[in-house]
């Protein structure tokens, strides 16, 4: 316990986040094995982990780098479809499912990162509202490209932007069929894979934030002119955050897609981008732990509200508004801080001397 206190605040926060993720995984895994949760909930486990990864990665752009990106689902879809194709093509070469999933996710991450670079180079010339609108447009462009993309595999890959006939295949299988998306997907994703991806995403983002590059990213967010004046290449670090987030979103997209038997490009539209943004904003921009919790709760909530039928989305909206209002209300915050202060004072009663001396014993 003493060693825990000596750690810097940032690393203590990170450790708590890891602990929460691991404990939640163990509990859910235990409940699932005891059949204590409904099958609809079990079906939600993988999407929840995917959304958590998306929330963490978007937090890197919105919270840490301070750019409002409205096209995150676009990178998710790039990862989803490249991951699907990779998993199918590699099927004969790699028989083990988990290994194939891993390789497919890595390929998905690479392609999403590539898309991130291509989108990022023009986008990083802009700031603020303009950047938000342009990322929105890019998200739509990616969706529409995938809507018109046909991919077939008969020993070699065939691409077309017209229809399946123009693929010119000898037998084989159509992997991506334009607006109908991909069908007959092999279900490689599992809750454990999702959990590991969450840990990996968390690892990458928190380590990046607490490094030289992460400090540079936050410096650009806090004060661009000052960051330039100390010799930081602002475009480089904004692009770095954007591309790393895109790669992680791509991996999450691959995980998400391989949880379903079929998936259409329309799934990754503007609404999904906004949904991920809601996770981040509700959890607190820059607060990774908050983003994880809100992603999990907001994915479960509509499912739990199913019993009230048509009023479901209305209640969902009201809950969102209420949480936003309360968490941004100064008086509520003061009350919570006061409560926290009182609780921690009880803990620290023995270490009172410490607290008076130590500046960082907060």
């Amino acid at each position, binding site marked *: 316990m003493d060693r825990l206190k000596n750690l*810097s*605040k940032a690393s203590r926060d990170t450790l708590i986040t890891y602990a929460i993720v691991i404990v939640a995984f163990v509990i859910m895994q235990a409940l699932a094995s005891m059949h204590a949760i409904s099958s609809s909930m079990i079906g939600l486990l993988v999407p929840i982990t995917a959304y958590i990864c998306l929330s963490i990665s978007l937090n890197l752009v919105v919270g840490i780098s301070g750019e409002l990106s409205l096209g995150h689902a676009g990178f998710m879809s790039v990862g989803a479809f490249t991951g699907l194709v990779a998993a199918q093509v590699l099927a004969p070469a790699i028989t083990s499912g988990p290994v194939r999933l891993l390789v497919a996710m890595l390929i998905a991450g690479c392609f999403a990162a590539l898309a991130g670079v291509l989108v990022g180079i023009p986008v990083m010339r802009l700031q603020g509202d303009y950047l938000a609108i342009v990322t929105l447009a890019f998200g739509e462009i990616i969706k529409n490209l995938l809507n018109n993309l046909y991919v077939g595999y008969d020993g070699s890959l065939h691409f077309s932007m017209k229809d399946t006939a123009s693929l010119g295949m000898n037998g084989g299988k159509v992997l991506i069929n334009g607006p109908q998306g991909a069908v007959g997907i092999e279900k490689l994703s599992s809750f454990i894979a999702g959990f590991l991806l969450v840990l990996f995403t968390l*690892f*990458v983002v928190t*380590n*990046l934030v607490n*490094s*030289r*590059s*992460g*400090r*540079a990213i*936050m*410096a650009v967010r*806090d*004060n661009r*002119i*000052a*960051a*330039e*004046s*100390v*010799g*930081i*290449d*602002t475009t480089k670090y904004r692009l*770095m955050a954007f591309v*790393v987030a895109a790669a992680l979103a791509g991996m999450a997209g691959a995980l998400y897609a391989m949880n379903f038997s079929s998936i259409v490009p329309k799934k990754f539209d503007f609404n999904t981008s906004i949904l991920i943004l809601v996770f981040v904003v509700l959890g607190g921009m820059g607060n990774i732990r908050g983003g994880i919790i809100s992603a999990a709760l907001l994915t479960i909530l509509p499912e739990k509200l199913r019993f009230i039928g048509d009023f479901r989305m209305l209640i969902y909206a009201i809950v969102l508004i209420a949480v936003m209002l309360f968490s941004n209300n100064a008086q509520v915050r003061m009350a919570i801080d006061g409560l926290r202060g009182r609780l921690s004072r009880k803990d620290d009663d023995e270490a009172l001397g410490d607290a008076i001396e130590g*500046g*960082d014993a907060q």
Partner: protein
Amino acid sequence: MTRDEKTYKVQSGSAPVGGRTEGTYKAQSERAAAAGVEQGRETHPKRQRTKMVAPPNNYLVPERDALKTPVLECRHLGIDFGGLKAVEDLNLMVGKTEIAGLIGPNGAGKTTVFNLLTKVYQPTRGTILLDGVDTAGMDTARVSREGIARTFQNIRLFDSLTVEDNVKIGLHNQVDCGMWSGIFRMPRYWLSEKEFHDRALELLDVFNMADNANDIAGSLPYGAQRRLEIVRALATGPKLLLLDEPAAGMNPVETEELMDNIVKIRDDFQIAVLLIEHDMDLVMGICEGIVVLNFGKVIAKGTPEEIQANPQVVEAYLGKQD
């Protein structure tokens, strides 16, 4: 009349300048003419010999820096905003270890000069040489890497980060650790973080701020924020430190302390300091050379004593005396 113009008048007027005297020129031309005759060519009798003089050198540097490359040299520097000439024909030299002052009434263009030096604005005319290197075409970040650090008139800290992180960001280009080493916590990462931490605390010690290392920068009192900005600027390892009103908002005791610290920084780090300040006690107390700017033009240069006695300066600040 400005000091520059005076010097110029004197030089171009009549008398011998520098080492070259009229006599030498004459002797040279006679010798050349004689040589022409000797080779059978006749020198054109009507061509007048050009009189050569040393150009007016209006630069001033401390004697100890006179033979070293000046850390900063501006030649005919100017910038227009539309039709407004915000800075015009600025000639300036700052010696290697000089503490120089840039003063002038409000709106004279002092901060614009800083923005030109740090390439926040690209100059319309003229050249900036930083330690002998032309900074044309460089951007702000590049100029910082070349050795100019600055503080801002309205404090610009990384408010949401800790004091230590602010200094570590200043050290960004001093310690290297790539993105991959950072993400995957390679040995390089741990080495660099240790170096970041040690050097940050060392720099904070200059202003006795090591105890505040874990405080959030935005929550510091005003004076401490100003000091932190100077520490962050020093962390970039500059050759020239630009301070934009470092004493603004400080009480006389704090200002006194700041003056000692500026001199200490110059002595310890062996760098040059160029500062903008309205507090005349500070300027006259520590600046070795002073440049006075009014309406974007230099109206006087000199030592504190010369500036205080200069009627143009008095007029710029106080209006015409009858």
